[in-house]
């Protein structure tokens, strides 16, 4: 027994050591981005030894980022010119101009809409592939799987031409719709939904559940942790999308990666502003992780059916 507890202690020590080492190695470059964002650019580039203590130039760097005329990083209150006159007072109604979106808000808006839309499409498709039999199922699945390998960079030209044919250039829909049926999401949902026992679905059918109820009352709740993981994947995918937004969006609608890319000039790279923008762009992701954190509960399927 004592032997066993000692071995257990060794395992625990190893696990902690590994996780801590990983966490430290992960944080170093991130911390560096943060430190760089608080330093004056000259100060940052001139030192050869690594700086570990943050400086005090963050606000100054942020101001210089915001002061750039061509790209707005964080939005500002818009000018509302449209209103209704009720006789006793004016009521503004044009909500779209309450706040002029900057790159940060644009990115959040696009990523949220995309994630929700794609979660629905992917989970439905994944459910179909995992739990139904139909003609051409395998060929269709492998066709979707095969598109995973397509470098998006290469679809830019035909996609741009397509978007201009249907009038979606400079629209957020142009960067939401093309990958809404995300092959990766369909693959992930299909792989995970295979673990839903057929007997569970069958017993629900016997109780008179419709096929759609099977999907949203059984499949979706049991897949909570997978859906949370997929939400992160989809959000980050859209968050990091670069080349196509660059091609299709015009100034004023830029998302974060496109906006940051504007800071890498041919003559000069604005390190300080890049680092400030990068630091700020991590915050929404941290919030996302914390929100979805609760969904990672274990053993959802355990004990749902006696085998």
């Amino acid at each position, binding site marked *: 027994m004592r032997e066993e507890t000692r071995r257990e202690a060794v395992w625990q020590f190893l696990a902690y050591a590994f996780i801590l080492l990983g966490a430290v190695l992960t944080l170093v470059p991130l911390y560096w981005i943060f430190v760089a964002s608080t330093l004056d650019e000259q100060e940052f580039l001139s030192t050869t030894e690594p700086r570990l203590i943050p400086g005090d130039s963050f606000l100054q760097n942020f101001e210089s980022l915001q002061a750039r005329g061509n790209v707005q990083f964080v939005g500002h209150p818009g000018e509302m010119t449209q209103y209704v006159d009720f006789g006793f007072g004016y009521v503004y109604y044009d909500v779209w101009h309450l706040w002029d979106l900057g790159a940060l808000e644009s990115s959040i808006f696009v990523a949220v809409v995309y994630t929700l839309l794609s979660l*629905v499409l992917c989970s439905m498709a994944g459910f*179909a592939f995992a739990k139904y039999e139909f003609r051409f199922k395998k060929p269709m699945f492998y066709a979707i799987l095969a*598109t995973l390998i397509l470098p998006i960079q290469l679809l830019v030209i035909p*996609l741009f031409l397509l978007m201009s044919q249907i009038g979606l250039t400079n629209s957020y829909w142009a960067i939401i719709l093309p990958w809404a049926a995300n092959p990766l999401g*369909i693959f992930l949902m299909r792989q995970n939904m295979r673990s839903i026992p057929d007997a569970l679905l069958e017993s629900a059918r016997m109780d008179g559940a419709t*096929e759609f109820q099977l999907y949203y009352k059984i499949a979706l709740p049991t897949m909570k942790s997978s859906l949370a993981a997929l939400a992160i994947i989809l959000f*980050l995918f859209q968050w990091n999308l670069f080349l196509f937004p660059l091609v299709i969006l015009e100034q004023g609608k830029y998302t974060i990666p496109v906006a940051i890319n504007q800071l890498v000039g041919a003559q000069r790279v604005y390190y300080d502003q890049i680092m400030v923008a990068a630091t700020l762009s991590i915050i929404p992701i941290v919030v996302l992780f914390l929100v979805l954190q609760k969904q990672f509960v274990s053993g959802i399927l355990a004990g749902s059916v006696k085998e």
Partner: protein
Amino acid sequence: MATQDTASQATPTARDRLRFVRQSVSHRLPNAGEGLVGYLFLLPALLVFTVFLGFPILYTLYLSFFRFEGVSNETVFWFDLGFFSYELTRIADLTFVGLNNYTALLSDSLFHQALFNTTFILLVQVPLMVALALVFAVALNASFVRFKGVFRTVLALPVSANLVAYSTVFLLMMQDAGLVNYVLTSVGLPAIPWLTSSFWSRMTIVGAVTWRWTGYNMIILLAGLQTVPQQLYEAAEIDGASRFEKFRYVTIPQLRPVLLFVVVTSTIGTFKLFSEPVIINGGGAPLDSTITIVQYIYQTAFIDFRLGYASALTYVLIAVVSLLSAVQLNVGGEGDA
């Protein structure tokens, strides 16, 4: 469909019996989810998929048999109803060249170099990252570990870092007098030419990509671990299985589909590598030892404007990766599942 089913239930024929046997073999109950319902669930995704991915993919294939001569303004089809008009213009001016784009690939040494670089990075990076992600996921799934949420968030953070920013940071860290060499030399190890030797510059890419994507894959594996029935571990414990045996005989087999997903998508991700070598190695330096396939395709398409040849390159890449994924799926046991 439905009427056929009720009719066959009244008088079972040999064909029905055969179907029943086949269904029982595949562990499916008879009548479980058949026919149109599957299509209905699939329809929304399929619609979006066909319009926004299907068309560009097929158009790229079409392009690969042509030489691109420029953008076209020629109208192919139009109508004008006064209140609504529509004009479809031809997308591009093209000259048919047959298989010339594909035969040219065979003697393109830069393409061969790009293929070699990508394969090299793949063989080092994917096993390293998947192993790390798996160990992190299992460790973080252990009941005794505290602050799980914090660690999970920290490890998954790199993927949220902006591509341009993180590549810039790696570029600065890996300089000859950068942070990494500073740490190495201060503990008495020799400095490594991270960006100037062809071997180490590939390793820098491996390091950067592993740093960015390990936590992401860990999240996927962690979600997969949640679906492993707890009873299996309890049963294994009763049989006196050690921690390693539980990992080997319960976790790995149960996690196989998700593990396979991670391996396949990581392989594909490595083949799509583009931005990191461009920023960190300035587009393939030193001496094209880090130029990747997609980077080469990008150069061909958007700098040389050889869209036809770039499309042919794309299709060769698609063929290679499809083949590799098919092999991985078969070896991973998707075929018999």
